[in-house]
């Protein structure tokens, strides 16, 4: 198995607050890794460090065996990291198909050697995979939360990454909507764009249906790792989520 992402002894402080104290995580090709932890555990900060939003204070991040430390966000994306945000982000006066086409401007560089199809046709294919083909000319303001989440997945797919980092995609969605998003993520994995995913979420039931491995973090430290059942049964995880006095 190829190691797609390796995070080694990562540390990050904001002033006196140690957001990430010492976290090491390996993600192999084909992994669907779930990351859980209570609010303030450092999950989103971990994503921000991996994508280069913030520089780390210590530790190392390797993508496909090469260090990406010091690279800016767009350079990391071009190396093969895509990301969705906790609060869906988009360009308010840009249509769905234009969002996808824009994401393809970076992804196309890698994609060019594989396909020579028309840009618009490929954008439409991606929209079809994420079930947005009926909404190509709509603006983000005309989309539902579920559709905005699908748009984020479409942009991530268009970048053709090695690994996709998904930050709380299921927040604010009903069970039915979460099910549809899970279905799309499965289709993405099957079509290998990307084949490796790391998902942060509080919706444990949605995570249980998709992740093959889970890491629990709290107060900037990794407190458990294993299958979904193993991590949920872990005493440290129970304490982190529910408090010290739970029997």
């Amino acid at each position, binding site marked *: 198995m190829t190691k797609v992402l390796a995070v080694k002894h990562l540390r990050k402080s904001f002033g006196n607050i140690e957001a990430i104290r010492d976290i090491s995580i390996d993600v192999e090709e084909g992994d669907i890794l779930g990351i859980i932890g209570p609010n303030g555990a450092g999950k989103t900060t971990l994503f921000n460090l991996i994508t280069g*939003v913030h520089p780390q204070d210590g530790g190392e991040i390797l993508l496909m065996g090469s260090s990406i430390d010091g690279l800016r*966000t*767009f350079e990391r*994306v071009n190396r093969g990291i895509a990301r969705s945000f906790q609060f869906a982000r988009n360009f*308010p006066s*840009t249509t769905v198909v234009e969002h996808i086409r824009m*994401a393809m401007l*970076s*992804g196309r560089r890698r994609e060019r050697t594989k396909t020579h199809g028309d840009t618009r046709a490929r954008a439409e294919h991606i929209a079809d995979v994420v079930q947005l083909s009926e909404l190509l000319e709509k603006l983000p303001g005309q989309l539902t939360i579920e559709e905005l989440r699908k748009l984020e997945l479409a942009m991530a797919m268009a970048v053709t990454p090695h690994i996709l980092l998904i930050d709380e995609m299921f927040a604010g969605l009903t069970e039915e909507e979460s099910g549809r998003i899970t279905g799309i993520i499965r289709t993405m994995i099957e079509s290998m764009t990307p084949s490796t995913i790391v998902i942060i979420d509080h919706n444990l039931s949605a995570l249980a249906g998709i992740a093959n491995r889970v890491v629990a973090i709290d107060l900037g430290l990794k407190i458990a790792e294993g299958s979904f059942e193993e991590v949920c049964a872990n005493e440290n995880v129970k304490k982190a989520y529910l408090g010290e006095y739970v029997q």
Partner: protein
Amino acid sequence: MKRENNVTNIAWIAIVVLLFTVPLYIRSLHWLGILTFANIFALFVISWDISSGHTGYLSLGHTFFIGLGGYSSAILTHHLGLPLYPSICISAFSSMIIGTILIIPAFRIRGPYFLMLSFALPLFLTSLVRIGYLTGITGGHMGLFPLPVFAPVPERYKTYLLTLSITIAFSFLVWKLSTSDVGFVFKAIYQDEELVGNLGLNAFKYKLVSFMISNFIAGLGGALWVHNIGSVAPHSILDLYIMVEIVIAVMIGGEGSIIGPLFGSYFCMILLEVIRPIAPGPWRLLVFTLIGGGIIAARPGGFFIEILRTVREIFVRRMQLND
């Protein structure tokens, strides 16, 4: 769709033909002069729109780039005796290079901070041309004159046609850029620069391209301006009011659309002239600002771009009904 595009193209060709035949039916040298100013002013306006109007880095320092082009060409022709057209080309490039180098550090900030920093640039150039030991080169407060002009006053139609050709050529190029993938990225930077980076696109590089093109066209416009009037002085090319007129023309036209601001620039130049008899002296600029501000307040999305879209929609609907 193809037929609709053909109709749109025919409409544009008709407008261009109409503009080129203006000297045939407008014999007034005064109005030909005003329309020549409008051609050059349109270059100022589209150059501001492709940088600030597209990327959201709103600048009040555009007259700095215009002034760089104007003063460079004035100095090259007046002091070094360089021929008119090569000096205009050199000036456009100097505005692009010097202007871009100076604006790069400001890319680290945006919003009101960028606005304020950009505002300082023309003030800096105004001070520079007035510095004692430089007045021998720049002409100080009085400026430099006489400068070579494109054609004598009785042959003003030649200047009109020359500036019109340049304006149409650059408007077409800038419009093509605006509607290309690169233009999409410029507009995306306006909306969410961080997200642009998250799509693997180097926002800094795109901003640089946008300002280089903008500065080149502004410098070119500045050089054309000074050789149209035959002189250069701080009050004629670096004045804050030119900046206000540019912003009003862009906003009336429809920011980020190129075509709208193009219409806006001609509208503003003609409006300024039409109100001259009824609002003399300082009243003229006051009345112009009030009318411009009123149109912007009534149609914040751009008055002219809305008209153009409406006309196109009516045409398309009619064609569909005829089918």
